[in-house]
């Protein structure tokens, strides 16, 4: 049932909350976002380098959020969440890598983006 007799504050997920971690996660997210913004707007790198850096920063942002905001770890309270998040990794891979692969070939053959 959705409702338990126990007090909401006793839930392990709720107990795991911590202000310093939240603040840190927020600062991290802001920092990474500003950095990627700067790279895109004023950075003067090759396209590949720009994309690579944005990718790396996105990865840092994701991991930071998962750990510091969502508290995903292997404790008993969180293991389901962690496993579900991990289970999406192959899907992430399928969707993004195959898409990039497809567009790479498409671009070569139909000069997509040339116009």
């Amino acid at each position: 049932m959705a409702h338990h007799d126990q007090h909401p504050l006793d839930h392990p997920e709720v107990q795991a909350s911590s202000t310093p971690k939240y603040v840190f996660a927020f600062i991290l997210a802001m920092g990474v976002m500003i950095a990627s913004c700067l790279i895109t707007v004023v950075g003067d790198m090759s396209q590949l380098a720009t994309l690579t850096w944005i990718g790396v920063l996105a990865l840092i942002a994701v991991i930071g959020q998962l750990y510091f905001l969502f508290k995903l770890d292997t404790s008993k309270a969180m293991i389901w969440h962690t496993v579900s998040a991990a289970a999406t990794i192959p899907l992430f891979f399928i969707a993004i890598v195959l898409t990039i692969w497809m567009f790479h070939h498409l671009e070569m053959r139909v000069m997509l983006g040339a116009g």
Partner: protein
Amino acid sequence: MFMDVQGPSNALFGRLPMILDLHYNNPWIMFAFALVVIGGIGTVAALTYFKKWGWLWHDWLTTVDHKKIGIMYIIVGLIMLFRGFFEAAMIRTHQAMAVGPDSPGFLGAVHGYLTPFHISEIFTVHGTLMILLAVTPILVGFMNLIVPIQIGARDMAYPFLNAVGLWLTTAAAALCMISLFVGSFSHAGWVGLTPLTQLDHSPGVGVDYWIWLIQISSIGSTLGALNLIATILKMRAPGMSLMRMPIFSWTTLATNIIGLTSFPLLTVALFLLTLDRYIGTHFFTADGGGNFMMYTNLFWLWGHPEVYFVVLPAFGFLSEIIPTFSEKPLFNHTSMIAATMGIAGVSWLVWLHHFFIMGAGPEVNTFFSVATMLVGIPTGVKVFNWAFTMYKGRVRLETPMLWALGAVLLLIGGGMTGMMLAIPAINYVSHNSVFVVAHFHNMFLIIAFAIFGAVTYWWPKAFGFRLDERLGHIFFWLFWAGSVFVFVPMYALGFLGMTRRLDYIAHPSWWPLLALEVVGIALYIASVAAFVLQIYVSFRDRERNKVTTSDAWETSRSLEWAAHCPPSFYNFAATPIVHSNDEWAWRREHGVTSVVPEKYTSIHMPKNSMVPVVLGVLFIIFGFAGTWRIGWMFFGSIIAITAVLIFRMFQKDIDYNIPAEDVEAYEREKLKSVDRAAQDNVHQTGEMGDAGTDSPAHG
């Protein structure tokens, strides 16, 4: 920041002033409007006359009972399904009339009776609503209705969330109905062909209706998926290990894993399209750095998993119906589970077969072609399992079994043509022809057959009486004949090169085949009439058709048949203990079929809530305001939705306990309609696949 839109608009009413000067008048719309108004007034009058408003509100609209929610999902879906049949009839009759340069035109059309814009709207709304507002809700309804009982749970893991999902779906259906009368619907196909969906090319509100109703219904589907997964993983009765779980529950699990992982993709793709249309970004535009092929890519990344989302539950129905009416256990339960999960797994790897012709080249096309054909392996496993279940079984051709057999037969045609289309060389000549349309209707018909089978099969469980057999057979044969007459000619026309979505047919030689399709659609409409009549007659004779034991078919196998017909609102008076994957058959075999528990205990249940209905209404306002760009109303509804959710979070009084005495009193009342002697004697041996099958039950 917001895009300039064509036509009149102002801050107070958004684009609504448009309907004053732009209106496409068509008697068909007036007819539909009259139908809805008369139906609406009739319902309101009946509810008032019979003083049923309180009943409707307390027993249905505010309920969080999974069974009632499931039934309401199915009703919404069936209503939309029948609306879809009418659209199909319009498309078919129009095309049969608009053949050749000399064909006459009516009602403002040059040929036939629908203008090109109007027929485009009709096939778009037909596709969108059939998939998202008819088939999906009906299937989700069955998952709601059956799965908790089948796994021995009291309700879903999150009953409140479940009601929210229902009302979101209903809100989307309501928007679809509103779009019929206020403004217009998208003309860009159910897939949303880009860049046709961009503001430059579709300046009206049609595409916006399409976007918002899909967004609202897919939030509902995502929440529902979450709920069903949690229910199945966490709420199974003691003894029901995952490997003992009946196949329908397994397919529900697989389906919802697909749903949970794919619906958010559609949400994102449509959100980006919304940004393009509302604030002028260039995600999917043809110019300004946009990439409209990315839209197609994202759409099918959801779209293909979605087709497995709808077919897997249908396979689940078949896997329940076939063993019951073959009086044998399902052949190889374990491989059925593996095949289900196999199909779900592959569903993610094949989406590109929807745009082989985009031009990604041989490497890419080969990869996706092979991946697509791999689906044939687990599907084949399923077909053989069903066939071996029937082999040497005592097959009874009652209505549900007829539907199931029809579905298995259709799978041959649909699967075969799917394989053909999965070969890029064939696809290059058949893509965008009506051959594809015939293929996927063939596939969806499997689902429709399985659904009607499931309706007949579980009807006694849900309502306590059986549906009329004779009318059921008539319904089946009419529907079957309709399918043959519509889709065999359509396959042929596909081979002849007829492209899809035509408003005018240039080849007079195609007319005979198109006329045959009209015969088919007439049979479909007749079949719908037979169905309505079947329900009416069965309801009228409900006393005679009453089921007096928990096992309406006498040879059913899974746990839901151990609950009353209809089940008590808390499902089982005492939590069942599960011994086998065919628990009810196991109990029959061991002579423990009594529905009276050894002792009564108190039961913890969720309380009704009006919050989900309120959210549904707010979501209609939200979608409507979004469509017509009424800023204050749009943001106002978001604030209101948030406020209602916060209000709900602070509600403490959301559950209650039914004391043991009340459970006992309630059960005693229920037991009055049970034939106790028959119930205790539904006893058969040898059904669990043991040697020496000597059951005298059915000769």
